[in-house]
């Protein structure tokens, strides 16, 4: 079963534990500036929104890469960057409509979320379950359940 990162912004507090966990897994240091997942603060609106790669099926980044440095991990569905092949041309960063693949000036290659090989650290680190790792086919399950619960009689409604 493929799983996907599920993000529920209304639960996010902006603590950045996910950014630390992500960068520690990828870089061996706590370094939010190198995190594959980013938390955006919308001050006026009073909202925090996590954002990262959604692992498109027909991934723009993968198709755009001229040297085939971005490949599918069949076990996880993640589109992974092969550092040794990447030439740092940045075409993928232009092709990605969501901005979730980025260039790293220290290494001269690009980097993106690889789902940590199937055990994403961001989801484990999130203290409020704003980021979870769920069945790809049923990402809407909890939302459906919440709407379904509205049909219950008032006094027994549980959401």
């Amino acid at each position, binding site marked *: 079963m493929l799983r996907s990162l599920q993000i529920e912004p209304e639960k996010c507090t902006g603590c950045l534990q996910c950014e630390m966990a992500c960068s520690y897994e990828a870089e061996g240091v706590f370094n939010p500036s190198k995190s594959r997942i980013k938390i955006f603060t919308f001050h006026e609106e*009073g909202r925090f929104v996590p954002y990262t790669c959604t692992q498109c099926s027909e991934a723009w980044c993968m198709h755009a890469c001229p040297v085939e440095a971005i490949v599918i991990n069949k076990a996880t569905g993640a589109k992974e960057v092969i550092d040794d092949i990447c030439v740092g041309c940045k075409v993928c960063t232009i092709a990605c409509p969501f901005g979730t693949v980025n260039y790293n000036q220290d290494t001269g290659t690009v980097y993106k979320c690889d789902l940590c090989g199937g055990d994403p650290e961001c989801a484990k680190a999130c203290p409020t379950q704003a980021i979870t790792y769920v069945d790809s086919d049923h990402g809407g399950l909890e939302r459906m359940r919440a709407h379904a619960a509205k049909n219950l009689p008032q006094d027994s409604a549980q959401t």
Partner: protein
Amino acid sequence: MSWTRNVLRVNLSNGSITHEPLNMQWANDYLGQRGLATKYLVEEIDPKCDALSPENKMIMTTGPLTGTMASTAGRYSVVTKSPLTGAIACSNSGGYFGNEMKNAGWDMIILEGKSPTPVYLYIENDKAELIPADDLWGKSAWETDELIHSKHQDPMLRIAVVGRAAEKGCLFSAIVNDLHRAAGRSGVGTVMASKNVKAVVLRGTKGVGGISDPAKFFKATEDGKKVLAENAVTGEGLPALGTQVLMNVINEVGALPTHNHREVQFDGASKISGEAMLEVRASDGKANLTTNGACFGCTIACQRISTVDKNHFTVKDKPQYQGNSGGLEFENAWSLGTDCGVDDLDAVTFANFLCNEDAVDPISLGATIAAAMELFEEGAITVKETGGMELKFGSAEALVWATEVTVKGEGFGLDLGMGSKRLCEKYGRPEFSMTVKGQEFPAYDPRGIQGIGLAYATSNRGACHLRGYTVASEILGIPEKTDPLVTEGKAALVKAFQDATAVVDSAGICVFTTFAWTLEDIAPQIDAACEGDWSAERCLEVGERIWNMEREFNLAAGLTAMDDTLPKRLLKDIAAKTGPAKGRVNDLGQMLPEYYQLRGWTPEGVPTDETRMRLGL
């Protein structure tokens, strides 16, 4: 190691910027942040210097856990000599600035001297430069933040900044980072402005590493997070209601100072409480509180993010104040609300926004306005001074007006900006000033909570709840319940809280963790991150060493045991009129001698040679 071991020294007088290694001997003795930066300050300045002269220095400092995955580990402190108290100042802030400083590679940034013209300090990892800030001088903290972001075209900059109040000499100016987190107390922002520094701007991309034992560290920090999540205060109360969970509680126990401490209970408390912030407004269908939020790394998330009702008189024609911003914490709701007798939640929220916008300590501001209101009601201040404003208790208009003129440094606001002690002296009624060592009280009345009176009287930075929060024990029963109306045992309680807090403030984590954590939870996290053995016992000894070092700085600055006292109003003149403490004053005299003795100080409050030797001072 989890220190970066690097110190950035900026001489503002001649513009030189140098790098130097951290003194690791001192790091072993004082841990980091509050303790370690105070050690640097003590070694480098004359305690008798004028706090606003170039001789004073200002240190921004992180702890060894800052920037790591330990919960709440995003803190930094500002250490300097306070212009408000003449004593040591150490103000702690959250947000994302401390983490960024650590990521840029710095344990400490030392600002010394005075720039001939306004500047801001721009730091990008190893690179640091002073950039002219003439165009930013005269701008609010919020405007400055926006202008610097847009000038550098970099939304990821983290900025700590002073507002207009600091430029005009307001003695309780703060340093605000990330728009609404503040190194709030004792006028650290005033010192920064006196050096002609408008902002410190950070961009750090190096990462925080060097964890001594990663496996142990992740285990210890995971365990810690679990304790926080399962605790009723840190896992439920603080995320839901913030520190405002306390407004109704403290009112009920009769320890909520009201009308400049003339009363200990406030009829309007529930209207400005954490619960009130959740109530849906009739006008726009929204509650005051939009959501809670977290500082960097924090798994508690007690921040309030709020709006003012768009139809309220304070923001009606001002769209720039109609969005979300940092909402009310208990201390601010108390000082701007309760102490001034104002129960208008929107007015108090708006006044708090203004304090953030221009980086002013809302505790000192509210308490000073409350003193001014009493001066006005007693006729010592008249409409002549206020330009026609009726500065009366309970008036939301007066509160907002007084806040506006103070944060902008205009007219009577310059008088208010001196703080309650100097204001009351100027207008001939010094007994109206509710301060210790010149710093205004926070939100707990020493008549209803006896131990906190001793904590205020002996706090090294003047009246403060964050130097020994015995309220935890006396009201909330953490770690165990003591009777708030009893003085017996409070000397030992105060000492224990003071020493433990000094360690927490030196580690890079938030003191709110101690609602759930003891040093037995904290020491393993420090131990795993740092080299050497950091047991709870060693941590406590470091805390005691820090406390005594701060004390010695104050003594050398000219303070004496005479300054370890409370205003007469609380000791003698006005007993609690209502509530469980009715008829009580604070019995400081029953606690202070024992406290000196437990500390190993002489009856004059001076550390004995034996104590100094024991602590290696």
